[in-house]
Every structure is written in structure tokens, then in C-alpha cells.
């Protein structure tokens, strides 16, 4: 029996958490409009300009800025009227030369009006801390979400397959396995044995077709033999457990650190990829356990007896039942990914040098003790995100455990 209470995920946590997550998402998406050294709408020499929107076109290589629009707002381009300005007139990288050398948020600042004030101070180069925090939030969001999505996809896929097929249910005829092996082996032999001509042209396609033809002929021959028609049992679950065990025995962050130099320039996505790659076993494990649990429940048995294809059973019937542990772990995972990302850029290994992130801000604060604002604000940001993710995960977990029949009940 699986009478689990319907789970109203989003109603299980206090409102402020939704508020924090919403703010984070909003900042991640809208940060160019919130903090920018260009106006949103400007009037110059009788023309209207939308520099922030134009910035996207320029970054995409589809346009060019007028000379005047390149000058950051705080340097007051002459004859240039700002009609609508961003909330904070600085980008993370904007250098405010007159406010360099760590200006305190409360101390005197050389600004023309309160609009140009650095509300959270500046660093040594005169970069605005608040703008850095906002742009850092964007990086943290995408790294956290990217890593989470990757680990969920990998964990779900492998966990579902391992749990559903277990050690005995995936049977493939020897002819298929044999011809695939022959296909791969012949590919290696072919690729190594022939020289590579210079205009390579379509030779790879010809190669592929020849090899595929060879594979098919082999399959046809093998499936005519009684040896080839016999089924091989693939112990998918055992392989899965070995893989998970292997990943869990690795000190994830250390290995990520060791692999990072492999990337010529570490971008948001390569970082998310690496972090996600070391996170999926955790999710996969739970998914597998969940599938193993529901595998023998009556509804699963009956859809199988009805003759549904494995693909459909997995997608329509198994997947909806394994979401709870996935969602819980995904929430924890986002927090963990943000913590790892900021730790790496704190060490100067991650996105580090080119981009302002929470980690690099914190590291800057280490070099000049009186600049408490460089230590406190990014740290609070990281803490908030990790805390909110943990609360979210725990609430969902509690909700899920409350709805699950206990393990020693009838099942």
C-alpha cells in the first residue's frame, strides 16, 4: 500500500524563505538593471538611448557603443542626461578611482550625490561592494542551479535504471552485446590501422557506415546461432553500487581542485559541471533505494503485467514516486554547491581572478583587516543561501517522512 499524503511542497516552509529565494532569483536574472555603470534610459544629443539593453547586443558582438556611452555614470559624461538610472550606478568591475583604498560604508566618500554613494563600501581598487555582491549572487545562482540540475539528471537516470533493472532484470541477447563489442573493437582497429588523409572530408561518415554495416552483419549471423540468442544478464545494480562507492570514497573538493587546472578558463558552467559530477551519487543512491522499495508494490507489478514498455513504466510510474528524496537532496545540493564555489574562488582557484564573486570579495577582506565590510557582507550572503537551502531541504524531508508509511508497516 502506498497511501502517501499528497505533498504540498511549497506550503511547508515559512514565507521568508520564499522571499529570500525569490530575491536571489530576481537578482540573478535582473542584475544588469539593478547595478550598472550605464543608464537604463539616457538622452544624448537629441537621441534616446537604452544603454543597458544595448549592452547585451554589444556583448553578443552585434553592436558597438558610442564613445560617450562607454564612460561610466559616476564620471559624469558631459552633455549626457540620465533619464532612468539603475538602482546602483556601478558594475562589479567598475573602478571608482576617487574612492579607492577601502572606503567604509559609514566613512566619508568623494561622491557627487547620495545616488553615487557606495552603500557597502569599496575595496582597494574602488570597486563597489554592493554591486560585487549582486553580481556574485548571479554567479552563485547559476553555479548552484547548474550543479543541482546536472546531479539530479545523472542521479535520477542512473538511480532509476539501477533500481528498476536491479541485478537480474536487464537481459540482452548475446548477439546484441557481441555485435556492439565487435563494432567498437573494429572502430578502434580501423581508426588506428589506417592513415588519416588530409582533407578528411566525409571519410568519417564512410567509416561509420562501414563499421555499422559490419556490426549489423555480425548481429544477423549471431542471432541465427542458438548461442547468440541466449540472454546475458547485466548486473546493472552491482555496477551502479560500485560506481557510487567509488565516488563516495573520493574527497570531492580535493579532486575538483585537482581537475580544475584542466580547464583553460574556468567558467560558470565548467565549475557547475565539476561540482554536479561529484554530487550525483548521493541523489542516485536515494533514487535507487526508492525504486527498489516500490518495485514490488502492486501497482508496479500490475503495469508490468499489462505489458507496458519499460521506458513507459520508468517514466510514468516510477519517476513520479521518487521525486521526494530527489527534491530534498537537490535543496541541500544547491547550498553545498554555492559553498564549494565560494571556497574555490576564495582560494583563487575557481572563477577567481577575472570575476568578482562572494569568495573573491571575502578574500580581499583578508588582506586589510579594517575593511570589515568585505568580510561580513559576502559571508552573510553565503551563509544566508546555505542556511535557506538547508532549511528548505529539512522542511521537505520532514514533510516527506511524515507522509511515508514507516518501514516496518505492511508494504
Amino acid at each position, binding site marked *: 500500500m502506498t497511501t502517501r499524503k499528497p505533498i504540498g511542497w511549497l506550503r511547508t516552509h515559512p514565507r521568508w524563505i520564499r522571499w529570500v529565494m525569490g530575491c536571489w532569483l530576481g537578482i540573478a536574472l535582473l542584475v544588469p538593471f539593478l547595478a550598472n555603470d550605464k543608464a537604463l534610459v539616457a538622452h544624448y544629443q537629441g537621441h534616446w538611448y537604452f544603454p543597458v539593453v544595448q549592452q547585451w547586443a554589444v556583448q553578443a558582438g552585434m553592436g558597438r557603443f558610442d564613445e560617450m556611452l562607454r564612460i561610466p555614470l559616476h564620471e559624469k559624461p558631459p552633455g549626457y542626461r540620465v533619464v532612468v538610472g539603475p538602482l546602483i550606478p556601478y558594475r562589479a568591475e567598475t573602478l571608482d578611482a576617487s574612492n579607492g583604498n577601502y572606503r567604509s560604508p559609514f566613512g566619508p566618500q568623494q561622491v557627487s550625490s547620495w545616488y553615487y554613494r557606495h552603500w557597502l563600501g569599496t575595496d582597494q581598487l574602488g570597486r563597489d561592494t554592493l554591486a560585487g555582491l549582486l553580481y556574485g549572487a548571479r554567479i552563485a545562482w547559476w553555479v548552484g542551479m547548474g550543479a543541482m540540475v546536472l546531479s539530479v539528471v545523472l542521479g535520477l537516470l542512473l538511480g532509476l535504471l539501477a533500481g528498476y533493472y536491479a541485478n537480474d532484470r536487464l537481459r540482452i541477447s548475446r548477439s546484441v552485446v557481441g555485435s556492439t563489442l565487435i563494432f567498437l573493437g573494429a572502430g*578502434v*582497429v580501423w581508426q*588506428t*590501422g*589506417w*592513415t*588519416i*588523409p*588530409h*582533407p578528411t572530408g566525409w*571519410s568519417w561518415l564512410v567509416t561509420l557506415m562501414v563499421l555499422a554495416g559490419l556490426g549489423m552483419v555480425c548481429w544477423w549471423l549471431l542471432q541465427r546461432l542458438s548461442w547468440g540468442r541466449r540472454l546475458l544478464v547485466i548486473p546493472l545494480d552491482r555496477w551502479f553500487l560500485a560506481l557510487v*562507492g*567509488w565516488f*563516495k*570514497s*573520493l*574527497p*570531492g*573538493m*580535493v*579532486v575538483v*581542485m*585537482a*581537475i*580544475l*587546472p*584542466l580547464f*583553460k578558463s574556468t567558467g560558470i558552467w565548467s565549475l557547475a559541471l565539476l561540482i554536479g559530477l561529484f554530487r550525483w551519487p548521493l541523489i542516485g543512491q536515494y533514487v535507487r533505494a526508492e525504486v527498489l522499495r516500490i518495485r514490488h508494490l502492486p501497482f508496479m507489478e500490475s503495469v508490468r503485467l499489462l505489458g507496458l514498455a519499460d521506458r513507459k513504466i520508468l517514466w510514468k510510474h516510477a519517476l513520479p514516486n521518487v521525486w521526494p528524496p530527489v527534491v530534498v537532496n537537490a535543496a541541500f545540493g544547491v*547550498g553545498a554547491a554555492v*559553498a564549494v564555489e*565560494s*571556497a574555490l574562488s*576564495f*582560494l583563487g*582557484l575557481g572563477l577567481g581572478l577575472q570575476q568578482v564573486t562572494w569568495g573573491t570579495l*571575502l578574500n580581499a*577582506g*583578508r588582506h586589510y*583587516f*579594517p575593511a*570589515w565590510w568585505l*568580510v*561580513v557582507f559576502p*559571508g552573510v550572503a*553565503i*551563509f544566508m543561501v*546555505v*542556511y535557506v537551502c*538547508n532549511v528548505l531541504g529539512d522542511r521537505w524531508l520532514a514533510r516527506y517522512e511524515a507522509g511515508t508509511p514507516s518501514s516496518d508497516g505492511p508494504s
Partner: protein
Amino acid sequence: MGRFIVIRLAGMLVTLLALALALFTLYQWLPGDPIENLAGGSRRDQEAAFDPKLYAQRYAIFAGRYAMDRPYFYFSLVPGGMPGAFLRLSNHRQRSVFKSWYRQLGDADLVRSWVEELERLSASDQDMRVVNLARSASLQTSLGASIRQFRQLPEDLLQASEIKPLLDRLEVRLQSRQWLGLSLRWHGADNQFHQWVRGLWTGDFGRSMHDGRPVSAKIKEALAWTTSINGLAMLLAFLIAVPLGVYLAAFAKPGVARWVQFLLYAAYAIPVFWMATLLVVLFTSDTYGMNWLPSVTVSYGYEQGSAFQRIFRHLGQLLIPVLTLILTSLAYLTRQMEKSLHQQLEAPYLATARVWGMSRRRRIWSYAVPNALFPIITLLGSLFPLAIAGSVTLEFICNIPGMGRLLLDSILTKDWPVLFYTTLLIGGLTLIGIFLADLLYALLDPRVRQSGFA
């Protein structure tokens, strides 16, 4: 039991070897060539007196010292007729370029004459365009692209360089496919991977590429620092967490418990490196009038005595890292202890004990707590990788020459031997930690002991 241990140990060995293989493969892909730095190749462009011959000699010597002039693995699968010398070139980049040229041409003599021609042109006093092209072509994998670039040179330069006949021969050769066949070369133990892995049982890890000190000495010293910090912190955290967990689960008033739980929960979300940075910034200088903790900016190098003697001398320095580790792991351990004890308190056997008239104190301390400790013990094994990961940032902040610092430095200086053995050591210790935790769990819990490890 014995069989279980043997199987697990064998599994650990396989895992370790797989990790070694993965790391070794990764290092072949990493950009940058540490031998080039050692041999002084990075100064190639600045120094007028740069002598390519001398550089090649120095390179070969350094490459030989780190076994880089051997084949990568126990065997290699190559196109038939490839000269064995191509697999033993000391320069990693040159090796892949030569192998690729052979795969395009299928003729070792032609490859050799192309190499000689390029060397002749690079060292000649021809037009700079020709010389530069020859230099860049000597590192370019695609022969077709190199030939095209040569063809685009002005006709008179091409004539003067006398390279045209060779270009024609190469071009003819490139236009057709030839079947070279396969050959499997067996190198035995004479390969790079074996040299690296051999260190695992001979204990000879070679020397650091950065400062030439023995890797084992560097690791030994770093390990002393990291284990003393983490061991101390873990012990203290454990000693605080268990009573605190018991107090929260069994004795605290609900209001107090909720507050303590909230604080611990919040502390759990504090990143280690932020906590340490805050402590350093706030409490180690007079900036904020709170110079209470010892400063961490003492340099440790070149002091006399064993690592432990030095650690003892700088015991004060360990205060901040240990404090940070305690605060962050305390939250986790206490929560787990509390949860575990809660589960025990609801168990029927305690209700039975109560009906028998056993005192509450006795029920909790003699029955519930020992049972609740089992899951905490297994946690110790899984805490190890976390501790190492945490110690990277911690040692960076507090300037402690431990494992994390060593790891970070070796990554930044591309010190492959140190990076390789440090990562392997951490992986191995993690495996042992998990194994010991399982073993301990089995020894303590009669149910697990009797079921013979499912």
C-alpha cells in the same frame, strides 16, 4: 568476518589503483609542462643567448629524472611500423605531435625528414617569416594545415628555403589512405604509470618538481600538522557534542532546547572559511580592540626539530583552526547525536525498562546512549573527507603548512608528484576511514556482527 575484511581490502586496493590511473590520465591532459619550467624553457623568448641544443639536453636530463622519457602505460596500441623512439620522446607535446604525424603519413622516414627540415629552417638565417613558420609547424599536429601555410609564403622565399620538394612529397602521401595495420607494444614495467604507482609500495615518492625536496618528507610534515589539528578538533567536538546531544534530547526544557537547536542549525550553515576569516580579522589584531587570539602570520619554514616539536612550539597558532573546526563540526555531530538518541528513546525496549521500574537516568545512560552512539561512530569515517576539504581553506587562511596547503600549492605550481601522491593519500585515508567505521560498527553491534555483513 575474515573473508569480509579481505574482500573489502581488495576492493580498496582496486579503488586506489583506479584513482591513480584516473589522476595519471588527467595529468597527461593538463595544460603546461613543468619540465619546461625546470629546464628554463620559459625564458626562451627573453634570452638572446638561448641555446636550443643546450636546452634540449637540460630538458632530457630533467625529463629523465622524473621518468617522463618513458612510454605512458604498460602497453600501447599504435599503427604498424611506428618507430619505438616516438613513444619514448621526453617532451610530452613533441611525442603527441610526432605520433600524430606518423598517423597521417604512415612513413617513419618521411616524418624524420620533415622534422629535420623544420629544424634546419628554424636554426637557419632565412627570412623571419620562414623561420617562425618552421617553429610553429614543429608543434602543429595537422600536417595539411602546415603545408598550406608554407604554400602561402611568397614564391621567392619558398624557393630559397628549398622545402618545396618535401612539401610535394608530403602532399602526395597525405592524399591517400594506407593500411598500416596494428601493433601492440609491450613495455613491461618500463613506463611512467608504473614508476608513479611503484612509489606506493616502495615508499619512494620521488622529488618535488617545485623545490626538489623529497615528496615523502613534504607529505609527512604536512600530515603531522593536519592530523594534529583535525584530531584535536574532532576529539573536542566529540566530547562536547555527545553530552550536548544527550542533554538536548533527554534533559533540556523545550524552550531552551529550541534555542540551542536553532543556534546549532545556523552554525551548521556557516562556511568554514568565513568563520576562520572572521576570527582572524576580528580577534588577532588591535583593529577592533579585540586582540585576544594569537596572530597567525608566523612563518614556519626552516625551524629546527621534528614536525611535532614545531607544532608544539606553535600550539597557540592552532587555536583558531581548531576553534573553527569545533564550531562547525559541533553542529553536525550534536544534531546527529540528538536525532539518534530520540529514536532510541521511542524504542519499545526503553518502555519495557520503565515498566520494570528502572530509573530514568539509568535507562538513558546505560541503554539508550550506547545504542545511540553507533550511528555517530560511522559518521567519523564520513567526516574525514569533509575535514580535509575544510582544512584546505583553513590552512590557507591560517598559514599552516598542512595537507590542504600542500595540495593548493602543488596545484598552483603544477607540482605533479606532490599533487599525485597527496591526492592518493587523501583518497586512501578516506577509504580506510570508511572501512574502519564499518568495522567498528560491526564489532559494536551484535546484530550486524551475527548477520555476517549483508
